[in-house]
């Protein structure tokens, strides 16, 4: 006589979590396919078109890489925060501020690109960190939820960028509307239109992985995130780590904004953040806040978003595609919970109850 029951595990095994992730992505795509089929479209045809347009030409690959780059930064920014239990919903705003500061340097500071570009990067990071400073202090010293404060700062940042791009920094040539002049310096290209923002982002992911995996700081941050009480009891400076991590998170998003404005868009304008900050949350959650995992989930999101653009001339709207990314997150959340359980068989000795 035996019975089956579910047993909750303290932590899911890595292999099970990874499979849960993959299954959730597949299920989301299948669900989207069923919905598309119901509206009279052939999902297999559309899927084949996405794959051939994305991976079948250097054109498609370059587009994909350009979409991948900002997601890498915002994904890493959110992931870093999650390591110490912080939800940085404000990557969108920090990204905008980074772009704003970098554009300001490029537009108003003359100098050789070799000097100006690093300065733009530094100012972009500083602006991103500055934008999360108030939420950071509020969280560290008054325990104010960063979920709300970082989110609200996003709207201020977006309006600030729109204001300067249509007002004081408006292109004086009159040849472009609602944007600044084209920045006189740009992040150099590594391949086709893909710029150095991509390799720098990849290197950043590796550096963060090393920092979290192999340094005392990384260890303390992880403990501080999973069990702040114990960490404090063990004498770890949890508050200091919290502040550092949040500022680093903002700085990474700010650097992403700098790369976007100086590498891809070349002009500061409203909407430059393009929801990358919010999609970065999905990227980080899907990667379970692992910096190397972010590389893969950011790429996945880029493929899906790029697929959405490819499918728009087929009559699919942006909203449909955003719904698919939402579905993936939805299934991933369910999958995560399932991965924490295992099915075990209770073999009961005969005669006992």
């Amino acid at each position, binding site marked *: 006589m035996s019975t089956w029951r579910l047993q909750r595990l303290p932590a899911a095994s890595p292999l099970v979590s990874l499979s849960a992730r993959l299954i959730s992505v597949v299920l989301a795509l299948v669900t989207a396919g069923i919905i598309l089929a119901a509206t009279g479209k052939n999902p297999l045809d559309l899927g084949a078109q996405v794959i051939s347009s994305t991976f079948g030409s250097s054109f498609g690959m370059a*587009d994909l890489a*350009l979409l991948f780059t900002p997601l890498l930064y915002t994904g890493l920014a959110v992931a870093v925060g999650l390591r110490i239990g912080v939800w940085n919903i404000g990557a969108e705003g920090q990204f905008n501020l980074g772009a704003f500061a970098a554009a300001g340097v490029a537009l108003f500071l003359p100098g050789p690109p070799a000097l100006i570009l690093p300065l733009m990067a530094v100012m972009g990071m500083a602006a991103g960190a500055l934008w999360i400073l108030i939420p950071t202090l509020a969280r560290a010293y008054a325990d104010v939820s960063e979920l709300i404060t970082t989110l609200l700062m996003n709207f201020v940042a977006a*309006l600030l960028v729109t204001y300067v791009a249509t007002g*004081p920094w408006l292109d004086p040539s009159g*040849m472009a509307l609602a944007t600044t002049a084209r920045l006189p310096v740009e992040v150099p290209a590594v391949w086709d239109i893909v710029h150095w923002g991509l390799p720098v982002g990849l290197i950043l992911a590796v550096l963060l992985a090393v920092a979290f995996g192999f340094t005392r700081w990384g260890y303390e941050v992880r403990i501080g995130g999973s069990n702040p009480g114990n960490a404090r009891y063990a004498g770890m400076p949890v508050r200091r780590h919290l502040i550092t991590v949040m500022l680093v998170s903002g700085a990474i998003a700010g650097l992403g904004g700098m790369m976007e404005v100086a590498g891809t868009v070349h*002009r500061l304008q409203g909407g430059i953040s*393009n929801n990358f900050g919010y999609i970065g949350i999905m990227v980080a959650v899907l990667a379970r806040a692992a910096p190397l995992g972010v590389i893969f989930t950011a790429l996945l999101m880029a493929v899906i978003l790029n697929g959405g*653009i490819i499918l728009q001339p087929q009559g699919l709207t942006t909203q449909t595609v955003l719904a698919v990314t939402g579905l993936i997150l939805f299934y991933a959340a369910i999958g995560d919970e399932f991965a924490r359980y295992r099915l075990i068989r209770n073999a009961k000795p005969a005669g006992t109850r």
Partner: protein
Amino acid sequence: MISTKELSRRGFLNMGAAAGAGLVLSQTGLIRPAHAAAPLAPVKAEEALIAFGHTGPTSDEGWTWAHDQGMKAVEAAFPGIKTTYVESIPYSADATRIFRQFVSQGANMVFATSNYGDFLYDVAKRAPKVGFYECDGRNPLDNLGTYYVQHWYPTYVAGIAAGAMSPTGKLGYVASFPVPSVYSGTNAFLMGARTVNPNATLQCISINSWFDPQAATQAGTALLDNGCDVLFGIMDEAGYLQVAQDRGKKAVMWNTDLRRYGPDAYISSIVVNFNDFYVKQVGRRLEGSWTPTYELLPMGGGVDRDAWGATVPAEVAAKADAVRTKMMTEGYSPFVGEIKDAKGNIKVAKGQTMTEQELYHWNWSIEGVSGLDG
């Protein structure tokens, strides 16, 4: 060959140099001379793909709807031709991706029905065999043209009626962004209104979108709360007309006949029609004679005032229409100096007529317009 870059730069310098400078650009509706570039090779209609990239949804009953009608006119004029379109393209790097997608799908001609600037320019530069057009565009290429409407003339005409129907002389404007198409609209409207209502003023609210019915409705309400009694704007839908109707005030609209949303409030609309333009340019592209053009469609040939609303008094309509007739038959322009900006500086000298180039690039508010400059 005349360099168009030079010309446009000169146009700008003239504009910035306030009064006095000799303005030499033509007033024929061409904003730049046509290029001497070689035409693109002909395409058979059955093999051609014409792509449209829109800023809003085609169901907006306004701007995007009007351009979508143009696409349908192209389909009717060239049986067998293939068309494709994408709605609600954001003004971000996503726009580049969408235009690139049109090119990789094999589009022979791409119309961007709004100003996408570099996002379109960068794509056009890399696709020299595709013909591009940018509505309200600024930067030409050998394969990238520009088209827009001289909306300032019918707007001036509508402004006359609005001024006559505003007891308080306080007019309101629901703006998108502080860009030239908005400045030329606000300024022309107030100039028209002041011919009958010399103390009229125009308050503007920018909502940072061309299509956001909720924000437009809120802006309309705020303007009426502020004492305005006639609303104008540059929205792609009818939001603020309904506000004016509910509050017993008046409104002038854009793009299409929207009187059913506010029959008592409706004065008129700046109606646009791009059908003939699209059919003509696609025809040139198919027969192999297409080179980019840079044109401003004139009043009566792509833009006009709509038939007057039911509550517009006959004598008001007659007064405004007299000016319209004068513009269309005699080439009359009301945009003559002296014109001062909102800070009181003289921007157009006494007796000087603004060129079409200047009207197209108008980027400052006249005295009496508030809320757009900083």
